[in-house]
């Protein structure tokens, strides 16, 4: 008999099968992920988690008899009162009695747990994130070295002299290696005795002692390879810096759920991008009607408001928060503004001035996302209908302001917009990166 311990064998043997399964059920899972993502908080997005898909899509068919029609018979245990020839009412629900003809292939929803990466991949895939960009996002992280104690091997450059000498010293003491001055003193005394008295017992003893000490000196070198210590360094990843993301949204009555959903998706993408680039990301939600307020995420996306629209109020609020909490020296500031484009007629100039003079200079990026309803997609291409906010920002852009603008009507258009943002960033890499 052999006993074999397989516990240390690499686990996850079914990983490949799992990937095949995910690929197989991709369409359904994607739908589930999309649904789940809608219900989730932005910061929760990366968590992964359970999704459920209809079992039908991943059923494995086979030639089997149907449960209905035809004569079925059952042998059952536990008869208490029946005698041969009795008849019994059919249990409700047709079919046979307890023993169904089904092969245990349930028609229930099929629930399973996605890992963080799987979830994210599917979420981003939904937005058609090309591989190239994904790789770029994933690798932005600097590596540094950090002192991490001493090691017994290393290159001469890293030799820790002090530590090595200290080791040598302790070793010499521990091994009782004769000190040089002792040897000198002994030699002097021997020389002295030889001069003075000639051969004597004491001289012989001293000479013997000297000989022993010299041998000992040879046996225990002053410095030995085992004394050597090298400085050790270990790689650490350093956060590039910290970032803050401002989410500005017009929540006046004209913003529909669809528009908010579009905005939320854009913010989610931005958040994922930032968290992969920076160790530390904060989010500030500012919503505005004719006046602006900093709120939490729940309120931001979910509570409807009515009232006029004054964009500059949100910009002013953002400016205030930046001054109070996020010094541009220490923070990378990103802002994304989502709006349906309406603004009160006399606010255009104010907003433009605020943006140009105050906001844009401190921002790494400022993205303006104009969200439209699904139905007015046709307009965008042919009829060049420009909202008042769009016109305002367009004029800013013409003056060379660092501003990304996009109009989005449908979920699938979000990613291209997002990518545009980062392509621009790449082109002038270094120029504004701290």
């Amino acid at each position, binding site marked *: *008999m*052999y*006993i*074999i*311990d*397989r*516990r240390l*064998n690499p*686990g*996850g*043997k*079914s990983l*490949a*099968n*799992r990937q*095949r*399964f*995910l*690929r*197989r*059920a991709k369409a359904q899972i994607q739908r589930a992920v999309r649904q789940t993502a809608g219900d989730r908080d932005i910061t929760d997005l990366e968590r992964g988690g*359970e999704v459920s898909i209809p079992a039908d899509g*991943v059923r*494995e*068919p*086979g*030639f*089997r*008899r*149907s*449960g209905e*029609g*035809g*004569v*079925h*018979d*059952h*042998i*059952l*245990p*536990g*008869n*208490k009162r*029946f*005698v*041969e*020839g*009795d*008849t*019994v*009412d*059919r249990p409700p629900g047709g079919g*046979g*009695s*307890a*023993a169904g003809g089904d092969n245990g292939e349930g028609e229930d929803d*099929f*629930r*399973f*747990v996605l890992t963080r990466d799987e979830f994210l991949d599917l979420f981003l895939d939904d937005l058609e994130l090309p591989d190239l960009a994904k790789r770029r996002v994933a690798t932005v992280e600097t590596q540094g070295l950090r002192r991490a104690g001493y090691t017994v091997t290393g290159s001469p450059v890293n030799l820790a002299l002090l530590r090595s000498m200290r080791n040598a010293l302790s070793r010499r003491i521990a091994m009782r290696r004769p000190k040089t001055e002792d040897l000198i003193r002994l030699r002097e005394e021997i020389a002295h005795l030889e001069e003075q008295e000639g051969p004597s017992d004491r001289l012989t003893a001293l000479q013997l002692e000297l000989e022993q000490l010299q041998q000992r000196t040879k046996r225990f070198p002053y410095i030995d390879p085992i004394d050597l210590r090298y400085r050790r360094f270990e790689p650490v990843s350093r956060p590039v810096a910290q970032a803050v993301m401002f989410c500005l949204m017009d929540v006046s009555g004209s913003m529909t759920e669809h528009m908010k959903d579009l905005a939320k998706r854009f913010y989610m993408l931005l958040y994922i991008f930032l968290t992969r680039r920076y160790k530390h990301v904060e989010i500030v939600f500012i919503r505005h009607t004719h006046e602006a307020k900093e709120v939490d995420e729940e309120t931001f996306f979910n509570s409807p408001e009515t009232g006029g629209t004054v964009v500059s109020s949100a910009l002013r609020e953002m400016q205030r928060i930046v001054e109070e909490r996020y010094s541009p020296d220490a923070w990378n500031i990103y802002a994304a503004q989502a709006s349906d484009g309406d603004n009160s007629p006399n606010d255009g100039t104010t907003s433009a001035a605020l943006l140009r003079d105050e906001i844009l200079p401190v921002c790494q990026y400022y993205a303006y996302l104009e969200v439209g309803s699904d139905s007015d997609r046709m307009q965008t291409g042919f009829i060049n209908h420009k909202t008042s906010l769009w016109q305002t920002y367009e004029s800013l852009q013409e003056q060379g302001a660092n501003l990304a603008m996009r109009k989005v009507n449908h979920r699938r258009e979000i990613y291209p917009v997002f990518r545009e943002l980062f392509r621009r960033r790449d082109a002038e890499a270094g120029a504004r990166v701290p």
Partner: protein
Amino acid sequence: MSVIEHEGLLYQGADWDFGTIQRIHDAVEAIGVGELGLDVYPNQIEVITAEQMLDAYASIGMPLFYKHWSFGKRFALHESSYRQGLMGLAYEIVINSNPCISYIMEENSATMQTLVIAHAAFGHNHFFKNNYLFKEWTDADGILDYLEFAKGYITRCEERYGHAAVERVLDAAHALMSHGVHRYPRKKRPDLRSEERREQERHRHQEQTFNDLWRTVPTKGAAAKPQLSEERRRALLELPQENILYFLEKSAPRLQPWQREILRIVRQIAQYFYPQRQTKVMNEGCATYCHYRIMTRLHDRGQISDGAFLEFLQSHTNVTRQPEFDDPHYSGINPYALGFGMMQDIERICTQPTAEDRGWFPDIAGSGDTMAVLRDVWANYRDESFISQFLSPHLIRQWRMFHLVDDPDQPELLIEAIHDERGYRRLRRSLSRHYDVGWSDPDIQVIDVDLAGDRRLILHHHVLNRTLLHKDDAQRVLQMVANLWGYAVVLKEVEPATGAIFQEHVAHPHETLF
């Protein structure tokens, strides 16, 4: 060590180490082989974690298997119900191979390990080695090598032809898996070790030989060949053929050699598992009976403590529980319970027969040597024949079995038979038929190919008890058959007695698939 020897106990408490396992195995072996006369393959016991057990579960319990999404699905299913606590894991998985591999989970207590070793490493092991179906159909020496080959072959196919193409063939093959077995013995025993070599040879052979189907490919200018006689043609194609996978592998005109090989691999594996499907009750009954005898004996000999014995009894009773039909937990007849019940009943008949037993089982009643009888039973029966031979009136009464017939033409369900004098034989016959795979799987055969016309493949389903096939599934599977065959396929559901056709399914191949 010395303390344990003094008390005679194999272990104390729940903890175990490899020394304990070795001692347990030796003690179990002494009883299993020495006293019960079991005949087993050498054992190989592998300790694995719960996660690895889930892995093994997902791929039909085999240690190495090719990759397929359905195993991932199975894993996800098990994993989620395991994590939610809905399902306990099996304590063991045992593989019909030589040496016989048993997996045991590290989380098990020492008592559970003893139980598992007695159950799997001796009970199942003996059954695998001695039952005639396993001897006839499986090759314990070659299976692991063959799986290794299958896994490698399919991986290479994926690299060469792409995941999607391989997956389509595998999906289709899996759907036909239960129609991919030979039910009757062939001339020689399978030797899986040489399968890989034979694959190469087959490849060469097929390139060189002439496929009869190609006669029908229209060629320019060639004179029309005289038609083969109907009978000769069907004989060449080995028709009718119930092994659909075999037929497609050999005769589908448009399959690539690698696609044929994949069909063959799935077919070989289906064939390997075929005896297990036919001997579920006996196999589990044998293992359960063995572990019960061995554990009891260990306790008698003072090798396991009273506490350990109680722990064993608790899991034993859990496993062999049979809820009654009106119990909310009822989900069919528990093969462990039925198998164990029948083995114990045979023991009773051998040692303490009643007059009734003497009448029903004159050969074994009062023979006294239970193990000799059981060893013979384990070697020479399958579930169907076992039940039709050995289900006793005593056990039928004990279980209070009855036979319920559901005829859709009748307004109510009928109690056809109960546990009385008139019912015993009828109950026994019906129950045994439930375990006849040939009876419970729909009987579908390849009947003919329209060679002269559009090469349409004709399948018949011989309808039993007017129960038709599940329509959606039948259509899906038929679609897969059509894709493999490369031309249209028609499946007729036929009443065997009258030849009346209840239903016809037709599928046309997706030209783009292969």
